[in-house]
């Protein structure tokens, strides 16, 4: 047997095994809390799920039937949809500016810095900000669903911008060059070539931002507040799942607490669904 084909030395084999063990242990340690959360959600919340749970509003009564969470579900959907409608176009727009026009200019770098700062701002600060600017001033009424949307949008904006910027930068420059060389004005290059190419990634990023926004409680506390009845009017106070959970979990009645768990499970399920859709789109775009 030649010297090229020597067997793996025993010491190295041992080191390999130890490393693998350590990394595996770390992974399991990280997974344990996640598994526990899912377990508890299912254990505590599955019992609350029923037809009534999804189709009736909370009654607000401490005694007697507590009702379902219909208004919360609808409220969450409405508020988040409006927030997305605000945050996503603006966020993608800012990203487009940074990547296609601003590039490395002083202004663009300043904008980037502030976007980064915004991702670190605690969500309650956004809620307070809107509370002071929109609610206390009485602009368009007191508490309102749309004000909650604005607060969420502020939260979602930097997330959308950050991920959109990364995706747009991944579009190969050779495509922009090809389009420019064909005699296309810059705006057409951006909207007809860059944007369509980046679309799958932009959708994924947006969905993750939505998932983030849908789960935030604090901004809604001071802006949308909470009502029990279902309302489709974003100009009025509106219920939402995070608020519902927040209120319910502090009650003494076991069935109300159970309802909170059910609401939490519903919220997680909604976000999971959104994430799955995002993954699906991403995977499909890789085969394109």
């Amino acid at each position, binding site marked *: 047997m030649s010297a090229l084909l020597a067997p793996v030395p025993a010491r190295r084999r041992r080191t390999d095994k130890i490393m693998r063990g350590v990394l595996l242990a770390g992974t399991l340690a990280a997974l344990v809390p996640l598994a526990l959360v899912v377990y508890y959600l299912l254990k505590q919340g599955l019992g609350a799920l029923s037809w009534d749970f999804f189709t009736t509003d909370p009654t607000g009564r401490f005694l007697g039937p507590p009702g379902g969470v219909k208004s919360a579900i609808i409220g969450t959907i409405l508020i988040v949809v409006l927030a997305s409608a605000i945050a996503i176009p603006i966020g993608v727009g800012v990203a487009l500016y940074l990547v296609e026009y601003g590039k490395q200019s002083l202004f663009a770098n300043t904008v980037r810095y502030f976007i980064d700062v915004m991702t670190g701002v605690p969500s309650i600060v956004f809620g307070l900000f809107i509370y002071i600017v929109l609610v206390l001033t009485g602009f368009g009424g007191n508490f309102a669903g749309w004000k909650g949307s604005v607060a969420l949008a502020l939260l979602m904006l930097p997330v959308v911008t950050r991920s959109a910027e990364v995706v747009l930068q991944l579009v190969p420059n050779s495509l922009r060059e*090809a*389009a420019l*060389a064909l*005699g296309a004005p810059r705006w057409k290059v951006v909207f*007809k070539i860059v944007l369509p190419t980046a*679309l799958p990634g932009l959708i994924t990023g947006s969905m993750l931002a939505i998932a983030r926004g849908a789960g935030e409680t604090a901004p809604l506390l001071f802006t949308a507040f909470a009502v029990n009845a279902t309302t489709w009017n974003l100009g009025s106070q509106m219920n939402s799942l995070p608020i519902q959970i927040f209120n319910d979990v502090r009650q003494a009645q076991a069935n109300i607490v159970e309802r909170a768990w059910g609401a939490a499970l519903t919220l997680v399920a909604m976000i999971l669904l959104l994430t799955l859709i995002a993954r699906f789109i991403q995977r499909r775009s890789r085969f394109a």
Partner: protein
Amino acid sequence: MSAEPREDAVRAPQPVRSPQPGAIAGSRAERSAREVISEGRSVEVRDLKAFYGDALAVKGISLRYAANQVTAMIGPSGCGKSTVVRCINRMHEEIPGARAEGTVMLDDADVYGSDVDVVSVRRQIGMVFQKPNPFPTMSIFDNVAAGLRLSGRKGDVKERVEQSLRGAGLWDEVKDRLAQPGIGLSGGQQQRLCIARTIAVEPEVIIMDEPASALDPISTLKIEELVAELKLRYTIIIVTHNMQQAARVADNTAFMLDGELVEFDDTNTIFTNPSDSRTEDYVTGKFG
């Protein structure tokens, strides 16, 4: 820009030196001049300088690319040949911090004139890049039509697409699968697709920046044959680091070194009896 051209600075190729009767009569250019299908335009570069920030990459060169002929730019890496051709269709200035000075005449109009629309320049001077770059979200048909749509030209798209694909020697291979994605083709086919896309907008001049360097030898030869046909309709400028390629396809050859034009003459002369010893050293492979 200067009003009068500096005659002494412009170097047209010198006449072929073969005083003996019975020697090969005429250059490659003369032989094919009779077969021109549609007049391309000549391009004349006068005292062109190109900067990357403060660094001077092209140090003031002047030469004339004759209409309906193939002119090759050769030279070692970094000599500035790609920069020069990118100044001709004003792609150089798309690089942040880059600028060009001097005059580039397309027949009798200065491409760098003060009221000239860059987009219209690029519609007349097309470009094919080193790495094939078809638009990934578009089908073969849409790729070829992209040039037309991006530059806002109306007209019978379908007919133009077929014409262009025929002109690029690709029609027979793709006519049954025009709706399939452009990036599903082989490397050589993708490059011919890019050529079809370029000629669909009917430019006067086509610049090819090392069009075959990413392709296998068979595809390379197909592209070279295509160039010989294309010059009957367009003026071709081809940058290549493969000297044999320049010898095979070009009527005239320009040799650049360190941002300067060392020698410019008909290809035959450059490869049998160059005037400058630096040219001699380069083509015989003593450096570069």
